[in-house]
């Protein structure tokens, strides 16, 4: 039990995927200009990350290891993730427009998010079991979502600030992310 709590606290706060581990920074920068989009992205990421952690675990455990082709991990994982996410997107788009607006449109944004592959690979590296893998993916995505949404709200505020010209746009966003990361260092030592 406590192992799982630790996984969650660790992935969400202490080793926040974005701010400490540097995974998924591109969407973190790209999709954070509006809180509404950021929120949609957060939900979609949670779905995909958890799903891909599970898929990768199954893939690894029941295909790659028995066949002794672990070196194909990267190819296999990314292929599975890309295909499943792509398929889900198309399916949702056709079957449930509401869900598509809420979640579906963000799905393509995620396959090229390196956090997705990162979660899968890290799970293997840390030798996590099924539940731990799923939780790891879930926690990572919650950490991602937390950082993303707060960052988006922050960026909305900064657009109104009198930022010196060379720093306008992405530059000040990076500085802000840096200061966020600084704040998140306060969680170090929690686990």
């Amino acid at each position, binding site marked *: 039990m406590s192992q799982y709590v630790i996984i969650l606290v660790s992935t969400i706060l202490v080793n926040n995927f974005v701010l400490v581990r540097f995974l998924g920074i591109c969407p973190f920068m790209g999709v954070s200009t509006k809180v509404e989009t950021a929120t949609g992205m957060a939900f979609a990421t949670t779905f995909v990350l958890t799903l891909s952690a599970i898929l990768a675990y199954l893939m690894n455990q029941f295909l790659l290891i028995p066949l002794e082709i672990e070196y194909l991990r990267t190819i296999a994982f990314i292929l599975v993730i890309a295909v499943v996410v792509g398929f889900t997107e198309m399916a949702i788009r056709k079957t449930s427009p509401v869900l598509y607006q809420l979640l579906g449109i963000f799905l393509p944004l995620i396959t090229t998010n390196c956090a997705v592959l990162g979660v899968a690979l890290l799970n293997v590296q840390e030798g996590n079991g099924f539940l731990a893998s799923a939780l790891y993916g879930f926690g990572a995505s919650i950490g991602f979502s937390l950082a993303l949404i707060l960052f988006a709200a922050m960026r909305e*505020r900064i*657009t*109104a600030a*009198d930022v010196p010209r060379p720093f306008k746009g992405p530059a000040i966003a990076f500085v802000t992310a840096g200061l966020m990361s600084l704040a998140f260092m306060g969680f170090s030592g929690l686990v």
Partner: protein
Amino acid sequence: MTTQQLWKYHGGLKTIPHRKSLSNSASVRTAVVPRFIVIPLHQHIGKPAIPMVNVGDKVLKGQKIGRAVEFVSAPIHASTSGKVIAIGDRPVPASGGAMGECIVIETDGKDEWIELDPPVKDFHTLDQASIQEKIRLAGIVGLGGATFPSHVKIPGGGAKVDKLIINAAECEPYITCDDMLMRDRPHDVISGIQVMLHSLQAKECLIGLEDNKPEAAQALEKHIAKENISNIKVIMTPTVYPTGGEKQLIKILTGKEVPSGGLPLNIGYVVHNVGTAAAIHDAIILGKPIISRLVTVSGAGINEPCNIEVLLGTQIKEVVEQCGGYTDDFEYLIAGGPMMGGALMNDEVPLVKRINAILCGAKGEFAGPQDSMPCVRCGSCANVCPTKLLPQQLYWYARSGELDKCNDLNLFDCIECGCCSFVCPSKIPLVQCITFAKNSVRNEREEQRKATRSSARGERKQVRLAKEAAEKAAKKAAKQAAGSAAKAKPAAKASAQLEAMNQEMKDAMAKAREHLQEMCEIKCPPASAPNDITIEPTAAPVKEALAKAKELLK
């Protein structure tokens, strides 16, 4: 004074320099008739009045010279007798030095009244509709500052009015005209109130005034006691700016809140200013239209601060002169109170119904231009906002042009009272930013309407072109047909062709019209539906077409 439970509204300013004694110690004067009177046709909320006189006409005092074209509008009267010497654009008292259509009268000094309706002895004999009509014809608009045509506030169609509330708070610093009015003419005020109570079928009237006007309250009380009236109560409220805002007054007196975006009537109240009440007395009992008003002339920049009864249309410059003129250190001029009034660029503008005060600021008396610092989000502005808005957030979003967010934060509920600007340590002109945002939103809406209209017009042009082309083709075909008719043989074929062509064209037109209709109905608000815009390039002179277009587009 009736002791009655009072409520509180959020925020407001308790410590604000009132400086009322400057003007309420002198007795009320009456301004002399000036040589020229300039009467703007737009002195109220709603459509401007349309001139009913021509240059050269002789007019009498109280004569209607401008006609209201709509229900929400008010007629305009000559405030003294004389000759109309011009009708056209003149500077009017609005911030920014705007121009407006005015009727200029050269006075004859006789101040000769037009024949008035005979005074009404007992207003109970009049029914609601006729009172409303009389008020409308008298040109009465709210004298509390909003200049909303007063007759509109008498609801027809059985809307229930619970209470009439008389706004005598006069919360703005410096201004004392309502105070003096109540002291000098309690009878007229009470009589006007009784007329309104009758016309509204309301049970009760509450007169709310701030407790810095004990004399006025006493005068009213005395009169009420004398007349033995039971359903009019005078209630003193604490002196907090802006208690005079109608929503705030309602909250203080009754504890109820006017719904956001709604009217007092939605919760069964009607609010009028005391000046309006007196004007209604004049109109109904005496039959006089509104041709003058009481104005406070005050400030350290005027030699003789006082209240003065001025004919509408008198130049402000002349009013100032009759109050002893500017002092040497006079700096700037405000029409209205120091919190909500607008600075005037020019004192050669006429006095209008709206102006309840003319403030002449001496150097350093008023704030003047401010060198603002950035907002430090101290929250003072939110603490004083009587509407409980977040002025600071509105300001941030206005700055970054996020109008949607402004709207989410209830931009249009701001009453522009100025409390937020007053307290801001960074001296940010918050109200100005908020009005900017409001205007931007309005412009944006206008823009959207325009876009819809444009596409409709674009479509129509296509239709027209198609029609023209078709006509041309038809003509050509006809010619051909005529030609071939000479050859006699393929005539039938030609006419069949022509027929088909015509049919095709008709179909196309019908389809296009349908489409256009649809678009207009769906996308355009009915008020400005473009289907009634008819700008065909006719042979009519362009000027006229343009005028017509302008009118239709309004």
